[in-house]
């Protein structure tokens, strides 16, 4: 599925992001925004897509030789995430920052529960930006700054989600 946010936004947003991010620590999620999406399976392991401690705990709850529980959970997550992205785009159209923050928090929870590290971190940023705070949730930012940051973040988040979705689909295809 394609992102609906403007493709021109990131270059302007990156300038704003770099200006605001002066005191922020670099995060894995930011690397993802600046590089091409990797498709090699080996790269997935080192790209911080999945927190294996969390994901393995889910797999341990599957019945023996059957990944039906975790598989249906993951596919439920895909459905939930897709719907949440649509809601995020709708909220962005209306510049409804509180709603964007709430949606970020909501998806953060389930992303974290599945061990989807990058998506979870981006959701957390969305939660903060929607509250008109910086990525760490500490310093206040203006509405214009929040709008620019969120537009770029939605594109980044979608890319990270697609990466995680591909990884999980490859994983479960390999289990059949």
């Amino acid at each position, binding site marked *: 599925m394609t992102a609906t946010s403007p493709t021109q936004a990131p270059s302007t947003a990156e300038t704003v992001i770099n200006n605001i991010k002066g005191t922020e620590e670099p995060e894995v999620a930011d690397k993802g925004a600046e590089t091409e999406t990797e498709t090699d399976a080996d790269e997935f392991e080192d790209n911080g897509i999945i927190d294996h401690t969390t994901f393995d705990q889910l797999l341990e*709850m599957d019945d023996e030789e059957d990944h039906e529980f975790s598989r*249906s*959970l993951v596919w439920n997550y895909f*459905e939930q995430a897709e719907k*949440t992205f649509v809601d995020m785009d709708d909220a962005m159209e209306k510049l409804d920052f509180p709603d964007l923050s709430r949606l970020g928090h*909501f998806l953060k929870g389930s992303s*974290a529960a599945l061990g989807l590290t990058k998506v979870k971190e981006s959701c957390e940023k969305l939660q903060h930006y929607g509250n008109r705070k910086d990525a760490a949730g500490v310093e206040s930012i203006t509405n214009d700054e929040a709008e620019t940051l969120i537009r770029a973040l939605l594109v980044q988040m979608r890319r990270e989600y697609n990466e995680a979705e591909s990884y999980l689909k490859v994983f479960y295809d390999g289990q059949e």
Partner: protein
Amino acid sequence: MSTLSLSSSHPSSPSPSSPSPSSPLSSSSCPSTFSMPMPASITPPGSPPSPTMSVDSIRGHNALRLDSPLELDQQRKTKVMIVDDNSINLSILSRMLEKHFTDIIQLTVVMTSGVEALQRLATEEFDLILMDIDMPVLTGVQTTVAIRQSTSEYPILKHNQSVPIIAVTTSDGAEQRELYQQVGMLDCVSKPIVLSKLRSAIEGAMKASR
């Protein structure tokens, strides 16, 4: 047969969403509530055995008496309510309890909002509540306050007013934990949940409630 009851919802839609049919918590034709059979390993709910109905008393044995309050309490398993607006989190936590806590948990009921939880607590007794914090309409903190205070708007059964409540949340900073304690929560388990920490919190809550 004991059942896992669920009301499903999505954060932004006014009506409940429908997860995929293959989901453990997929909805039936009734969109707001549904039940699913518990695995055979979970014993069905029932009243604690009365003094006249214990097996040994029927058989006339002088063996273990199952009718003293302490023994009944030890035998009776825990009835748990999970409250979370995110169906993924509900699935994971209820599965954890099903897989790893059958020694102490008899039945798990899931609620997708604080309001639903309060309505259920007005009519049915529970032994433990696992409460999400960041929920729309009523947060976990607000729901806990309502449980402890039992207002006319949300009357709560007397037994439930002192039920142990454990926060299960990503909002787990020191200040927030202090707030949870102040409103009457016993403990806080961080998300994503680590099994050993969940067990420690649940066992601690059950000991504290005795």
